[in-house]
């Protein structure tokens, strides 16, 4: 069964460094999402992406964050200058149809900012 993949599984970085989290969505999917989960809390929406542009973003998704689909298969989340509070699990998700379809989640990248 097709699945969403994410790399790396765990990333440790120093405060102020840039990180890029990578995702490969399911190949025929059209809608892409990033979510994050701070340890012990609920999963929160960050951003959605469709037709090569951001379709919706949350208040969390400030100027330090950016997303890109550089080559038609990868979907990346960049954090320009990491803060301690960016430490979280980051999930990528994709779906084929907008309203009547399962959103499939990747296994997540655990980001630790020191």
């Amino acid at each position: 069964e097709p699945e969403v993949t994410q790399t790396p599984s765990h990333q440790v970085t120093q405060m102020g460094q840039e990180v890029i989290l990578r995702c490969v969505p399911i190949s025929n999917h059209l809608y892409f999402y990033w979510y994050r989960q701070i340890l012990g809390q609920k999963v929160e929406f960050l951003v959605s992406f469709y037709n090569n542009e951001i379709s919706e973003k949350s208040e969390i998704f400030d100027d330090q964050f950016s997303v890109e689909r550089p080559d038609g298969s990868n979907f990346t989340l960049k954090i320009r200058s990491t803060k301690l509070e960016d430490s979280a699990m980051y999930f990528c998700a994709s779906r084929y149809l907008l309203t009547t379809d399962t959103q499939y989640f990747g296994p997540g990248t655990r980001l630790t900012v020191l």
Partner: protein
Amino acid sequence: GIQVEQSPPDLILQEGANSTLRCNFSDSVNNLQWFHQNPWGQLINLFYIPSGTKQNGRLSATTVATERYSLLYISSSQTTDSGVYFCAVPSSGGYNKLIFGAGTRLAVHP
């Protein structure tokens, strides 16, 4: 925006027991998903269930969309069922981002 509430927040079971987890949502929705977060933090899709009942092995789910709730049943629980169970519904409008509940943390003891 839509609110999602899950109950109970915590549940402790002996292996072999049955349980029911509940998800209430504040507005009408056109789909609902249940997830299991395992000890490694991965979110595992359990059900996509906008209405009606579905079964998958020892797990089943029922959504009553008109009354704005969904139930997840776990029968004959096993230690591997431990983890956090989340329900999530799409926000109205926009690109259907999922709104998650706070989860039910389940611990199954041998």
